[in-house]
C-alpha cells in the first residue's frame, strides 16, 4: 500500500473517549487471515459498528460519519495497545483516517502507523482534554511545524520522531533508507563474524 505525503491537514474529529483501545478492537483477529493490505478499511472497528446480525449498530459513533470531512481520530490514552498487527493502521487508513491523536499511543501501533501514512501523535493532557470534549470540532494539524491548532487561539506543539516525520511528509517507506545502509550493515556483520 502506498500512501499520500502528509503535510497539513484540516479536518473534523471523531472522538472515542475510551482508554486502552487495543488493536483487537480496531480490527478483530478474524479479519487477519488476509494476505493483502487492501480492503481492510471495511473491517475497522467492525464489532463497534455492526450488530451480530450484520446490521449497522445504531449507537455506533461511526454511523453517519463522513470520511471526507472526518479524517482525524481522537482517542483516550494508551490507544493501539496490545497486538502488533499492522492491519490496525492499514484498516484505519483504508477507512479514511489520516491522523490519530491521543495523550499516549502504544509504541508498536505508533511505529506501524507512521510507516503507513497515518500520523499518530501524542499531545499534552490539556490539549487532549479539549479534543475529547469537542467531538466533531474542525482542527488543523501542521506536520512541518509540529503544531495542532484547535482554534486560532488554542494551539499546541507535538513531538514526533524526526525521521518518521520526514518519511511521512515525503510519502516514502523507510526501507530505502535501510538499503542505503547495506555497506555499513555488511561491515558490522564482518566485524562480528
Amino acid at each position: 500500500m502506498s500512501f499520500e505525503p502528509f503535510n497539513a491537514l484540516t479536518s473534523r474529529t471523531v472522538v472515542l473517549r475510551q482508554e486502552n483501545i487495543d488493536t483487537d478492537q480496531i480490527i478483530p483477529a478474524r479479519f487477519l487471515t488476509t494476505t493483502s493490505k487492501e480492503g481492510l478499511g471495511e473491517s475497522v472497528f467492525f464489532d463497534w459498528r455492526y450488530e451480530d446480525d450484520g446490521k449497522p449498530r445504531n449507537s455506533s459513533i461511526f454511523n453517519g460519519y463522513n470520511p471526507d470531512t472526518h479524517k482525524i481520530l481522537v482517542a483516550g490514552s494508551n490507544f493501539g495497545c496490545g497486538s502488533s498487527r499492522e492491519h490496525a493502521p492499514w484498516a484505519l487508513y483504508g477507512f479514511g483516517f489520516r491522523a490519530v491523536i491521543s495523550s499516549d499511543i502504544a509504541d508498536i501501533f505508533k511505529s506501524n502507523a507512521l510507516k503507513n501514512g497515518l500520523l499518530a501523535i501524542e499531545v499534552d493532557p490539556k490539549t487532549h482534554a479539549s479534543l475529547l470534549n469537542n467531538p466533531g470540532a474542525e482542527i488543523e494539524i501542521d506536520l512541518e511545524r509540529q503544531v495542532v491548532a484547535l482554534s486560532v487561539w488554542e494551539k499546541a506543539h507535538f513531538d514526533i520522531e524526526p525521521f518518521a516525520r520526514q518519511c511521512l511528509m515525503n510519502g516514502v517507506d523507510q526501507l530505502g533508507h535501510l538499503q542505503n545502509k547495506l555497506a555499513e550493515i555488511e561491515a558490522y556483520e564482518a566485524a562480528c563474524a
Partner: protein
Amino acid sequence: MTRNNSSPQSLFDKLWEQHVAVPETADAPAVLYIDLHLVHEVTSPQAFSVLDEQGLKVRRPDRTIATLDHSTPTLPANENGDLPYATPDAKAQVETLIANCEKHGIQLLNLGDPRRGIVHVIGPELGLTQPGKTIVCGDSHTSTHGAFGALAFGIGTTEVGHVLATQSVLQRKPKSMRVIFDGALQEGVSAKDMALAMIAEIGADGGQGYAIEFAGEAVKALSMEGRMTLCNMSIEAGARFGMVAPDELTFEWVKDREFAPKGDSWHEALMRWRTLPTEDGAAFDKQVRINAGAIRPMITYGVSPDAAAPVTAHAPKPRTSAEQHAVDYMQFEPDQPFTKAEVNRVFIGSCTNSRLSDLRDAAAIMRGRRVKEGVVTLVVPGSEAVKRAAEAEGLHDVFRAAGAEWREPGCSMCIAMNGDAGAPGELVVSTSNRNFIGRQGKGVRTVLASPATAAASAIEGRIADPRPYVNEMKESA
C-alpha cells in the same frame, strides 16, 4: 564491539550497544542488527509481497526461521489428511507462508514437523533463543525471549519486510526500567501472578517507552519457563522489551539444544554470555520494587490486563466510566467475591502458559478429579515437543480423565483465529495474555489467570483459588 566508557552498564545497554550497526542521530534512528528473525503466517504475507514487488531477496535466510501457529487448527486431520481450517482464508494464509519459505529458501517448521509450535515456545526449545541475541518477530509477545538475556521485541509487518530485506530495523533506544521483585513467592503463586501483579501496579501503559529488566530474589528463583511467562507479559504493561539477566540456569537450558553452539563455540559463547548481566551501579530511568511475598494468585476482572486483583478479592466499585464499561461487559457486581463467578470455559495454553511446567501445574490439580459438568476445558500444548513430553508423562491421560480436551499445538483460544473460540456471554478463565473485548470470540468474557488457577476453576466451575489444592498435595507428599 568495544566499550568506549567505563561507567557501569545494564544488560539492556550492553545488548543495545553490541547491535548498533549505524548509530542514531538527531535525524535518523539507529540501524539495529538482528541476529534471529522468527516468522509466522499472520504478519508476514504483506512483507513478502513488498519484497516481490521490489525484486528483493531475503538477505539472510540463515538467520530467519518460520513456523505455523496462529491460524492452524488444534483438531487433528481427518482420514484424508485434511486439517479442519476455520476458513479457506486461514488455509490460504498457511499455504502462502509455505510458498514464501520455499521461494526464499527459509527453513520452515511446517505442519508435521516434530519441532513445530507457537513461535515463542519453539525458539527457546530449539536453542535458537540465546543470551545476547537480538530477536524480532511480527508478534508483540516476542518479548518472551528476553527471559534468556536477549534483546527481543515485536515488530510490525513493514518492519518484517525491513528485516527480511536488510537483516536490520530502524530503532531509537528506549528508556530503561528495572522491576525488582523482593522476597520469595508463596506456595501456589506463579510467574503469571507476578506478571499480573506488576501490570496492576504500573498500569497497562506503565512500561510505555521503556525496556524492562526484571530482577530481584523472586526472579532469580524462577525457572526458565517462569521467566519466559514474566517477560511474555511485558507487552501487556506497554513495554516492548522484557528481560532477565542470563545465569547458570539459562546456560543449562540452552546447552545441547539443536541450534545451540557446540564444542569450542559453546565455551566461547559462555564466556561472552557471562559478561552480559547488569553491573552494580548501572543507571535505570525508572525503578519499581514489588514485594513478591505479598503476591496472591491473581485474576483479571476487566477488559485490560491491568484490571487485576487477587482471586480472593471482591469486585471493586467502578470509579471511572472506563471501569464501569469494563465491569458492565464482564458482568461483575460491585463487592461480589470473584470466587462466586460461574465459569463456562477454561483455556490452558498460549505463548504465556503452554509449556511443560504449566501443563504439569494444571495436571497436578486435575489429577484424580473431574472438571465441573458443562465447563468446556481445552488444554493446548505450546509445541509438538511439549505435546510429546506431556504425553510421555501421561499428562494427556490426566486431562482426559478429568474431562478436558487434549488438543494439537497452536495459539488456539488466545487469539481465536483458528476457530477455537468461546460463545457470546461465556466466562472463560484463560492462561493467555489478553482479556480484550472479543479477543476469545465475540461477547466472550475473559479472565486471565495462572495454569493452577485455571485448573482449579475448571474443577469447581467457578473462579477458584488454587492454593487449597496445592497445599493438599504438599501435605500428602
